[in-house]
């Protein structure tokens, strides 16, 4: 066998090699093969291990065979997903011999998932992790201010997206001030710039609402918005964040963490501010409602007032006096007639009494020829027995009187003959 290595037969005496020499020779031999210096290998990952050094070790296998692989830390940092056992991948790299172990292995420079894209896997993995940590929780989402005064926009100062947003913000709500925080939105370091701008806006309380985003692009272009550092910055933001990355179907981790997701940057501008046309309509409606309710109130008072006005005391104030005056007249009349009745009655009573008095007057009896006899002591004489002969009596006639002396007493019946 060894003669093959040395290609000749110049020295047939067998030479003894060290292990290192053989392994080194094998390494040279393998490294000379162009096919092995840059190849793609499809396989399933097993025994995946990451060492503290940052190097990744794993085995690629298919149904029959296995191949040891190493991915050094310098290449591992470009991994877009976390490789796991059982994953179907395509590894790129070169085959070489590791002289210490006398084993050949794949020195992997890139590892991409076979089938679904590796970015897709990375996306799913980060999504699961952040979801488990509650970064997408609805209860963490903050409401957007209804009338933001300052709107900070974290995006690229170049490109159509920023101008679309400014145009829409101006058209809808010119009351606000727009602060642009210029960042790179793709490429190495873009994610850190975006996250930094979000933190900066919070540190200086720059705005009432933040729009973070960029225009459309490939999944690689949008990738910064799928990075954890951006997700964390959005989650930590006290200022509500509207995420606006790419077009409608693109969903990024930023969209999931943000307080509101917009389908496009233009849509973010629409979400972030009210529309002045709508505000004018609203003002119109408020004005209408205000006037209507006030009119209603005034109408109510007006109706009451008119009802009162219709009452006669107010329509014809003299009527009140006339009424009272008429009543007074009537009363007066009643009083007068009552008075007359009383006078009449009394007059009649008086006449009657006077007539009776007259009839009973002794003078009227005397006028008919009777007289009244009285003793000297004025005692009326009703019987002859009341006097003795010789006694002086007086007779009272209708006109004048007589002083007489009793001569003799007659019998009682004689007197009654008169």
């Amino acid at each position, binding site marked *: 066998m060894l003669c093959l290595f040395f290609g000749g037969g110049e020295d047939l005496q067998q030479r003894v090699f060290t292990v290192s020499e053989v392994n080194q020779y094998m390494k040279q031999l393998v490294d000379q093969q162009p096919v092995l210096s840059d190849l793609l290998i499809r396989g399933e990952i097993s025994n995946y291990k990451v060492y503290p050094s940052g190097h990744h070790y794993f085995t690629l296998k298919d149904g029959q065979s296995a191949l040891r692989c190493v991915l050094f830390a310098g290449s591992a940092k470009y991994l877009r997903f976390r490789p796991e056992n059982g994953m179907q991948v395509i590894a790129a790299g070169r085959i070489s011999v590791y002289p210490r172990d006398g084993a050949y292995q794949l020195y992997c420079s890139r590892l991409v998932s076979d089938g679904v894209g590796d970015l897709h896997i990375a996306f799913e993995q980060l999504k699961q992790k952040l979801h488990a940590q509650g970064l997408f929780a609805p209860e963490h989402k903050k409401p957007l*201010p*209804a*009338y933001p*005064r300052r709107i*900070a926009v974290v995006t690229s*100062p170049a490109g159509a997206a920023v*101008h679309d947003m*400014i*145009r829409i*913000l*101006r058209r809808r*709500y*010119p*009351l*606000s*001030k*727009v*602060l*642009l*925080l*210029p960042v790179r939105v793709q490429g190495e370091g873009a994610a850190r710039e975006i996250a930094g701008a979000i933190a*900066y806006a919070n540190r*200086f309380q*720059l705005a009432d609402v933040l729009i973070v985003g960029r225009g459309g692009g490939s999944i690689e272009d949008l990738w910064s918005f799928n990075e954890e550092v951006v997700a964390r910055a959005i989650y930590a933001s006290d200022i509500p964040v509207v995420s606006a990355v790419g077009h409608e179907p693109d969903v990024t981790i930023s969209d999931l963490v943000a307080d509101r997701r917009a389908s496009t940057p233009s849509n973010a501008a629409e979400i972030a501010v009210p529309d*002045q046309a709508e*505000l*004018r309509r609203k*003002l119109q409606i*408020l*004005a209408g*409602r*205000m006037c209507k*309710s*006030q009119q*209603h*109130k*005034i109408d109510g*008072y007006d109706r009451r007032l008119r009802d009162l006005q219709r009452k006669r005391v107010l329509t014809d104030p003299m009527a009140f006096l006339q009424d009272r005056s008429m009543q007074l007249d009537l009363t007066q009349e009643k009083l007068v007639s009552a008075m007359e009745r009383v006078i009449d009655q009394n007059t009649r009573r008086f006449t009657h009494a006077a007539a009776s008095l007259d009839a009973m007057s002794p003078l009227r009896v005397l006028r008919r020829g009777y007289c009244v006899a009285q003793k000297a002591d004025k005692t009326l004489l009703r019987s002859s027995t009341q006097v003795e002969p010789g006694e002086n009596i007086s007779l009272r006639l209708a006109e004048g009187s007589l002083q007489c002396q009793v001569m003799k007493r007659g019998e009682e019946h004689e007197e009654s003959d008169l």
Partner: protein
Amino acid sequence: MKKATFEENMTRLEEIVSLLEQGDAPLSESLAIFSEGSKLLAACRKELDTAQQKVVKLSKGPDGAPVEEDFLSEEENQ
């Protein structure tokens, strides 16, 4: 006194409208509220009519604090 923001004016206006719609206030009081509402309406409309949006680009100043510079949108460039 600080000038009321558009939001404060809108909020107060909505309050006034619902107060008036409840209709409990005596006439003189509701007239005063109505007149306040009318002023707020005018103020809000005026603010919308006269608003001029300002767009600035921020950069970090020497002390880390933001520095504003004008940012011309495409419309203004044309």
